[in-house]
């Protein structure tokens, strides 16, 4: 047999100028920030600062340490909550995907949670758990866990039947089928769930900081609004949005690197 007539699908050539996606991304940033600057200069509202003023405030707040302190206190419930939701969420989702019994008992809880307007539950959390760290961690979990659980569950349930059959045909044990086929096959969807969960966790922690007790970023937003320092308020909002976006997209890179080597190039 020969395969001379087949050429593998090409990889990038020796020259890699800025890829076209990077150019488009840059262009869209320029467009959005430009529009922001323009709207701030009109101004569309006295409470709407320009992009430049916001960046200056961001710089100032970073220098004087108030941004750093805020993040230190916001990240604490966020990280704890995400860690709990990530570990237990994936475990619960995978278990639901593998066992009908587990699915029957656990799935409805998360389906309801995902549909519920969770902000409405936050006063209830305060009522039970007070206004401390626990309440904030729970707020993060309530927002982050359902999407993590449900994605993991669907990912496992939809793992390729043909690959599972292949593994069985080569005498793979149940454990091998799960470890070598189901989990790798499900990992892109599980990670998509994790990314959505982290995004939801950011919402949860900011909501908690705005609704329970003002601390961290929530405190910066509330405080600067109350004294009409709108540039500072927007700087706080901008920083948390950017922080969330960067976290989520680095996770995507990490995922491709670790789990799906075939998607690394191109």
């Amino acid at each position: 047999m020969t395969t001379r007539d087949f050429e593998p699908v090409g990889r990038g050539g020796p020259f890699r100028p800025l890829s076209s996606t990077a150019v488009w991304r840059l262009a869209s940033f320029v467009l959005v920030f430009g529009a922001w600057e323009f709207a701030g200069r009109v101004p569309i509202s006295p409470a709407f600062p320009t992009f430049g003023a916001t960046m200056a405030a961001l710089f100032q707040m970073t220098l004087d340490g108030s941004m750093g302190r805020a993040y230190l206190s916001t990240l604490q419930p966020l990280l704890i909550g995400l860690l709990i939701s990530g570990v237990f969420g994936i475990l619960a989702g995978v278990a639901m995907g593998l066992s009908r019994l587990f699915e029957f008992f656990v799935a409805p809880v998360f389906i309801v949670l995902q549909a519920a307007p969770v902000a409405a539950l936050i006063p209830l959390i305060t009522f039970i758990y007070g206004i401390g760290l626990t309440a904030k961690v729970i707020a993060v979990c309530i927002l982050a866990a359902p999407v993590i659980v449900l994605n993991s569950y669907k990912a496992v349930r939809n793992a390729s039947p043909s690959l599972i059959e292949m593994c069985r045909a080569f005498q793979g044990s149940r454990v091998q089928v799960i470890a070598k086929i189901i989990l790798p096959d499900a990992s892109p969807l599980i990670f998509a769930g994790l990314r959505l969960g982290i995004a939801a966790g950011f919402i949860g922690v900011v909501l908690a900081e705005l609704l329970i007790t003002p601390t961290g970023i929530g405190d910066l937003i509330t405080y600067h609004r109350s004294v009409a320092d709108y540039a500072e308020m927007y700087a706080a909002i901008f920083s948390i949005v950017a922080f969330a976006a960067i976290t989520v997209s680095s996770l995507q890179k990490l995922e491709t690197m670790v789990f799906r080597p075939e998607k690394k190039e191109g």
Partner: protein
Amino acid sequence: MSISGATDPVETATKPDGIVQARGISKTYDGGIQALEGIDLGFPKGELTTLLGPSGCGKTTLLKIIAGLLEPSAGTIIVNGRAVTGPGPERAFVFQDFALMPWASVLRNVAFGLELRGMSRHERHAIARSYIAKVGLAGFEERYPHELSGGMRQRVGLARALAVDAEVLLMDEPFSAVDEQTRRKFQEDLLHLIQSENKTFIFVTHSIEEAVYVSDQVVLLTPRPGAVSRVIRTGLDHGGSPEELRRNKRYLDMVEEIWQMLREYLV
């Protein structure tokens, strides 16, 4: 109807020393669709047997039952004198849809059967490399399935089945996803392989020409529920040149004869 497992009435139609034997295999799926009824067959060692029949007659079902992936509703499969209860090391499957792991390189895919057996990385990779070369994919070890053409993927599936060194290879329409030229090349390669590997092949196809071209024995199945309609021994010399074989009068007659038989079912 019932065919007792103790005596094998149809066994006489094929060699009694079949390495794989189907005894009274019936299969009714949940939901009541009966796919197979009373299949009695022997698959002689070292030969290629083709299952041929109209679409939906239960060829895949029979192959999966032989593989131990599906349980028959009645009857038993005997391999090397022992009843099949599940997949075993003496049987390997080549899947119609390739069933390659997209996240694994060609090398890992081909070595996968050995990986599942717990063979060391070094050892299994050495074996996998030799079979990758054998199916003509040398140099593609580190590629991923999406970088390969359909024909190349099928070769990976074939190499994976060969690598576990099973005595019986079960192939479900392995060439249906490739174009006609590639298909012809594959058929010729397959004949070489049969000659060099001394394995038993059970092969499902839709193509009468392909069936006669590659087989020692062709099993015709009736429409659903599939039952054995006829077992034909081709008696062709597969060792000669492909051109000779394709022009052989016996080959052409047999293709015509089988076509006439299958035609009855198409009305």
